[in-house]
């Protein structure tokens, strides 16, 4: 029987500011628009942002509490299904933005990180198998640190966000070789903030350059859109601007991830 294997998707990058959170939120919302039940997780414990982007005022339980083993995942998940126009469902688990919580998460030891990996791995059973979630999307911290590598190890598929920035290109290539490859992870590259994205020939040129440079499958090219900057991160873009080219690109990525099948 063929089944989709990209159930848990980690969105990661070498450097910050590559658009991981923008991609995570809109990829999760695009999957939900396909009629799927989706969970979005803020695993950037050093700089939590989903609570602000998604206007979540107050949480009784944070994702931190789940990883600390003091709260069930069901109590952490917020139902945001009413924010998307579809039959799908969107839930979000947010990280605690309080300074004390950030400090607490940054001093965890190896043993705790190992247990946190176990908690992330067990989501496959509690959410995918028992509660019939179709996809879990992990928004991670940039670079090589425990919380993001835990997310990568727990994931089936890693969306690697990068830009044309020289410092980012080199680090991303190294991570592809020395991180995702070592864990035998399937990856899809998203080049964000592409400039001069006007003609089909230009797109073909970028496609070829990327294929030569990174030697991994390209999931999508995202041009630099002023409308995204103007939105100031205050909305689920694919919901608020259903006809915008960015929305079409995100929907295409979601369809490609959902269509990926293995024996």
């Amino acid at each position, binding site marked *: 029987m063929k089944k989709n294997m990209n159930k848990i998707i980690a969105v990661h990058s070498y450097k910050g500011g590559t658009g991981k959170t923008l991609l995570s939120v809109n990829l999760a919302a695009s999957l939900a628009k396909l009629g799927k039940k989706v969970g979005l997780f803020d695993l950037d414990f050093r700089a939590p942002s989903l609570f602000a982007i998604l206007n979540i005022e107050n949480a009784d339980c944070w994702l931190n509490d789940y990883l600390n083993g003091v709260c069930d995942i069901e109590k952490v998940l917020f139902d945001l299904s009413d924010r998307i126009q579809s039959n799908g469902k969107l839930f979000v688990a947010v990280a605690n933005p309080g300074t004390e919580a950030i400090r607490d998460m940054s001093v965890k030891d190896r043993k705790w990180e*190992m247990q946190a990996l176990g908690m992330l791995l067990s989501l496959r059973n509690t959410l995918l198998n028992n509660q019939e979630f179709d996809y879990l999307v992990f928004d991670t911290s940039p670079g090589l640190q425990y919380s993001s590598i835990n997310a990568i*190890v727990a994931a089936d598929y890693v969306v690697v966000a990068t830009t044309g920035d020289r410092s980012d290109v080199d680090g991303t290539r190294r991570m592809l070789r020395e991180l995702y490859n070592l864990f035998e992870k399937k990856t899809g590259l998203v080049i964000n903030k592409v400039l001069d994205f006007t003609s089909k020939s230009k797109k073909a040129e970028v496609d070829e350059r990327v294929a030569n440079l990174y030697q991994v499958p390209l999931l999508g090219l995202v041009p630099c859109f002023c409308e995204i900057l103007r939105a100031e991160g205050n909305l689920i873009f694919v919901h608020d601007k259903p006809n915008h080219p960015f929305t079409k690109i995100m929907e295409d990525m979601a369809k490609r991830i959902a269509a990926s099948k293995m024996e």
Partner: protein
Amino acid sequence: MSRKEFSNKKPLQLLEKIRESLERINEKMEVIIEIQKHGHKELQLVPDASLDVMTLLSMPDHLRKTAMTICRCGRATAQEVAQQTKRARAVESAYLNQLVIMGYLKKERKGRKAYFHTDRNSEE
């Protein structure tokens, strides 16, 4: 086993005991063969060993594959690990026992089966 104990056992039970002993000897030999293949360095007991992601990253490729499988399953026999890694059971048994010697995994016997798990599971 004393002569009295020996005479009280049924032949089938004795054979089963011998089989278990042979399996244990076989496992030990597999580890010895692997030590010869890969050298002694990587088989030293690691103080405060934990199978966290940074440790996984720094492991040699052949051990990482086995360790990752136990991380995902939580608890498994060499046969179950071999099914996932598509390597021979004897090879996985040797790698799993190496990880036990290094302190990364724990091993428990239940009847004839040996289960391997991380410390994480024993605390749950």
